[in-house]
């Protein structure tokens, strides 16, 4: 049974948003149980590995937040969690860079996927900001030196007044809240676009080539 939408409801912001959300991804493509036959390469694994390592980053970051800013300096468990946080970040970037290079050589922006590419680049650049503020939030020698060095670059373009790397309280908030919110939002957007448009076909591939049959 279909539900008729009254003319006055069609102007509703809520109806508009609901309609938009319901049509973001084609039916069955949000969690597909089949994939195009041409998807057969290890390069495809790195997108999933990036997402998996991002979850480890967020999980270990949350654990560090629960322990408090000084926990990892004083506790062996806290230090281990911090080590996991560091190495998950290293893995996140390593897998993300391989993913990015893979998508470059696949020209993965073809077929109206330019925004998918651009959101991926924004996710990468924003993640650099997240990692950078993380180094500034460590409250150790690295934080002191990196902040002393970084202030010149950020001040040189007039941004330092609002993004003061010498203020560890401000940097901790950027690192633990503001930047992760942006990273997660952009990654979600990126994944929605991937699911919406599907995985880019090989260059010059034809859909009726008989592949997979």
């Amino acid at each position, binding site marked *: 049974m279909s539900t008729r939408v009254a003319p006055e409801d069609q102007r509703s912001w809520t109806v508009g948003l609901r309609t938009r959300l319901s049509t973001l991804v084609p039916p069955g*493509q949000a969690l597909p149980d089949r994939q*195009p036959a041409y998807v*057969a390469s290890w390069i495809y694994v790195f997108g999933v590995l990036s997402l998996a390592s991002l979850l480890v980053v967020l999980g270990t970051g949350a654990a560090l937040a629960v322990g408090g800013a000084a926990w990892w300096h004083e506790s062996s468990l806290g230090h281990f969690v911090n080590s996991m946080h560091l190495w998950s970040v290293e893995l996140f970037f390593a897998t993300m860079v391989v993913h990015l290079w893979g998508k470059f050589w696949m020209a993965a922006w073809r*077929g109206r996927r330019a925004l998918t590419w651009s959101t991926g680049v924004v996710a990468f650049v924003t*993640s650099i900001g997240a990692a950078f503020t993380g180094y500034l939030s460590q409250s150790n020698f690295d934080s002191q*030196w990196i902040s002393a060095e970084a202030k*010149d670059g950020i001040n040189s373009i007039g941004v330092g007044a609002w993004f003061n790397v010498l203020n560890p309280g401000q940097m901790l908030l950027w690192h633990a809240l503001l930047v992760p919110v942006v990273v997660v939002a952009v990654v979600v957007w990126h994944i929605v676009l991937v699911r919406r448009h599907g995985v880019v*076909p090989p*260059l010059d591939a*034809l859909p009726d080539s008989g592949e997979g049959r």
Partner: protein
Amino acid sequence: MVTIAVRPPRGTTPDSHDFPTRPYDLVKEFVIALVAMTLLTAVLAAAFSSPDEKAITMQGWATADPADVVATATAELAGTTTSATYGAPYNHASDGQKLLGLPLQKWGGVRIPVDSADLVLQPLEAQTGNDAVTSAVQQWRAASSTQQQAWATGYSDALAAAPGGDPAKAATGDYGPVPELAAGLLAVAQSGGLEGGLTSSGNFYGGDQTRAMLLLSDGAYLEDLAVAQKLGGDQWGMMNETGNYPGQPWMWLYTFWYQVQPFSTSENADALVWGLMMVLTLALMFVPLIPGLRDIPRWIPVHRLIWRDHYRRHPSVRR
């Protein structure tokens, strides 16, 4: 049913949903990836740990290099330190760096006002019970700026000429209260009293280290330690990390420019590098729209390796 392949115009990409498919367990793949990355992270953390070089304290600085503290305090009074001559966002002492002639640093405005002399005087004024220091501060405050400049510059020159920068070996001269002020700051630092002295500013919660970090980085001690750890600007700086750890390799392109001309010797190196990196980042973002750049994958057919099964099954597909 016979299907006829109709080749789309070159440059168009067919819808991926129109291609033949095969079974695929997305959730299973993700769970396996999550478990694998968690385990790999735990193994790397257990094997290599993470660096945690303790932060420098003002007391540590004063103990390890007292002459540097005295020289820095004197230079702050003379207004010749890096922070004293910095410009925005700390003061109006200079226009700061420019990008293509545009003083972006100056346009940012002085929003974190810092008086370099106050980096020395404020901790001393907070002290009680030291009449010599109190008297020296009063003498400094009562003098004209010309007189202050002459005293501090004279003592700064004398310290620079003294063997090892040792204040005890500085030539005698008319330095007004400057030697007492510099020695006073050294004493406060050595006692541990300078910790928080520049950050709390009367507040119980002192979370902003801007002024303390400016004072510390105006001295030579912090940079000397950083260079010893291979963290200097001409040593790929922020890309590295204390100890034998990977650091931030994702910043290689940013730190790369500081190693080469004209950036390595430019007065505006920071602004130039930031400007260049913004252009390169935008270029990466808009690769799909940039002719030539977006065609590289077609010219260098790495995709033939990535989709080698597909191209093996369809050898007639043109590149």
